């Protein structure tokens, strides 16, 4: 029997970490993820976990401590947001290239500047090329479910990569909502023990981690890393199937909402997907064939599967809660467009930048996007592809 609870997104992450009982947690507080290490440190001091909690002096050190711990053979976890993630930047790449399956809860917040504590996806989108697997979450439930699956994905012998689980700062991290938790013993059974094949503190097979890698080997090293993240695709689905058996909740690379026969659709990430679903319902009531595709796995990018899901849609709006200053659109837009190119040509596709710096995204904003798609469907003319919604011009 699942446990019926009500928790904020941050509480859900801390509870998941308590149930996981990792060997090491190293973290530095930053809004809006602060509560995760805060609650977790209470579990540590109450003796509910036997984790070594390292209260570091910066996020750079938090990631460094996780790297050291993971290299030594420990299961290491952390949490951060925005500028904290940015300060980890150098170490993110080292964690991934050293093939250390660290698990991070990333509570999405706008990167400075100007200084802003609210939600957008500029932090994790910026880290998309660091070699981390990225899972995104619409609400507290998905954040919890993703975190439990993240360990199994990253630690799989075919993968051995770090994973970040993202959710929207404040919007879900600080909203108390209903959630179904697994019992502690079920979580322990699911995540198991972390037993790496090779690790530094193994006296029978001492190894070095993260050495110099000059032109003779660096390229092969990167190639192996690229192969590992490709292999993670199968592992992500296998872990999801096992998790579904345990919980009844089904996960894939993305969620399709009323997309089957949709003529217009939006592609979106995290909490606004929920708001958009209510708009889809309303449009469907009016006989409009609207649908939605919500990204769960952004790294690796499930290009083929997304293309298959979108190929019959007439007009698509890709929603980006981050700028990439490419002058042609946001990060998700360019990925989706590249995925469709040459495979599903002829679909009208536009991009909307929305909700930057915590600008609230209303149902009306989403309706406006679907109305634009209806207009494109009617006229066949895409018009400007790089658009904004909810901004004062």
């Amino acid at each position: 029997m699942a446990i019926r609870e009500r928790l904020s997104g941050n509480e859900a992450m801390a509870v998941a970490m308590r149930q996981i009982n990792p060997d090491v947690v190293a973290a530095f507080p930053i809004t809006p993820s602060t509560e995760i290490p805060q609650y977790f440190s209470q579990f540590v001091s109450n003796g509910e976990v036997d984790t070594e909690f390292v209260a570091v002096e910066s996020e750079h050190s938090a990631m460094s401590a996780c790297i050291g711990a993971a290299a030594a053979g420990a299961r290491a976890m952390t949490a951060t947001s925005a500028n904290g993630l940015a300060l980890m930047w150098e170490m993110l790449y080292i964690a991934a290239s050293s093939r250390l399956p660290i698990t991070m809860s990333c509570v999405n917040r706008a990167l400075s500047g100007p200084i802003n504590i609210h939600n957008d996806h500029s932090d994790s989108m910026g880290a998309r090329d660091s070699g981390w697997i990225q899972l995104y979450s619409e609400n507290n439930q998905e954040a919890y479910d993703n975190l439990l699956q993240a360990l199994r994905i990253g630690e799989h012998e075919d993968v051995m990569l770090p994973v970040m689980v993202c959710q929207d700062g404040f919007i879900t991290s600080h909203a108390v909502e209903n959630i179904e938790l697994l019992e502690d013993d079920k979580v322990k059974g699911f995540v198991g023990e972390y037993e790496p094949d090779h690790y530094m503190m193994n006296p029978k097979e001492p190894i070095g981690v993260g050495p110099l890698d000059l032109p003779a080997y660096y390229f092969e090293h990167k190639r192996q890393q690229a192969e590992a993240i490709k292999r993670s695709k199968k592992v992500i689905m296998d872990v999801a199937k096992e998790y579904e058996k345990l919980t009844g909740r089904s996960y894939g690379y993305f969620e399709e909402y009323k997309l089957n026969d949709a003529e217009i659709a939006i592609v979106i990430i995290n909490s606004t997907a929920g708001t958009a679903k209510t708009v889809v319902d309303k449009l469907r009531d009016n006989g409009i064939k609207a649908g939605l595709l919500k990204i769960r796995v952004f790294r690796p990018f499930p290009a083929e599967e997304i293309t298959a899901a979108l190929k019959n849609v007439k007009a698509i709006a890709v929603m980006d809660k981050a700028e990439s200053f490419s002058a042609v659109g946001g990060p998700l837009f360019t990925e989706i467009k590249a995925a469709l190119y040459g495979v599903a040509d002829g679909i009208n596709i536009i991009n909307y930048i929305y909700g930057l710096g915590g600008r609230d995204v209303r149902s009306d904003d989403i309706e406006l996007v679907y109305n634009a798609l209806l207009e494109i469907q009617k006229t066949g003319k895409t018009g400007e592809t790089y658009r904004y919604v909810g901004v004062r011009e």
Partner: protein
Amino acid sequence: MANLVEIRWHGRGGQGTKTAALLLADAAFSTGKYIQGFPEYGPERMGAPITAYNRISDERIKIHSNIYEPDYVVVVDETLLATIDVTAGLKENGAIIVNTDKTPEQVTKYLKGYKGKVCTVDARKISEDTLGKYFPNTPMLGAVVKVSGVMDEKEFLEDAKGSFAHKFATKPEVIEGNIKAIERAMQEVHGI
């Protein structure tokens, strides 16, 4: 969405408005509902206007935005009436509940022509009588449960006792006062 009730709270930092919204979410959760309770975060400081929200429904709530067309508005600090358009978007078949010693008729003139139900409760007096201090949030919680009918009053009181026992584990002396504050607010709210 079936039976969705949306509530918007206006208060000032330090008055426990966010706590009241979370307590309401807690109580509704305990009666089997799906809930959301969330504050609108800004630069947190004592005395600054703050907004908090509740959604209560029989189904899982998908929407994740602030509330623009609430069924009920709770004003924890009446000085906000002068500066904030508290009835913005408020449904006319809903109600506004204001913490004030004035009557609903006296308050109506500050509400920009709002035609729905106007309720008032003197949370200051109730709080000072029952707690000896000014904590307007629990009386307002009682008033909103009474006016909105989102849950059974008796069930709510029972649950509030449990929540307070947990929340005030280190200062049990305030539990009884808070429960009394809720009960009195339920009896003394005007304009229903």
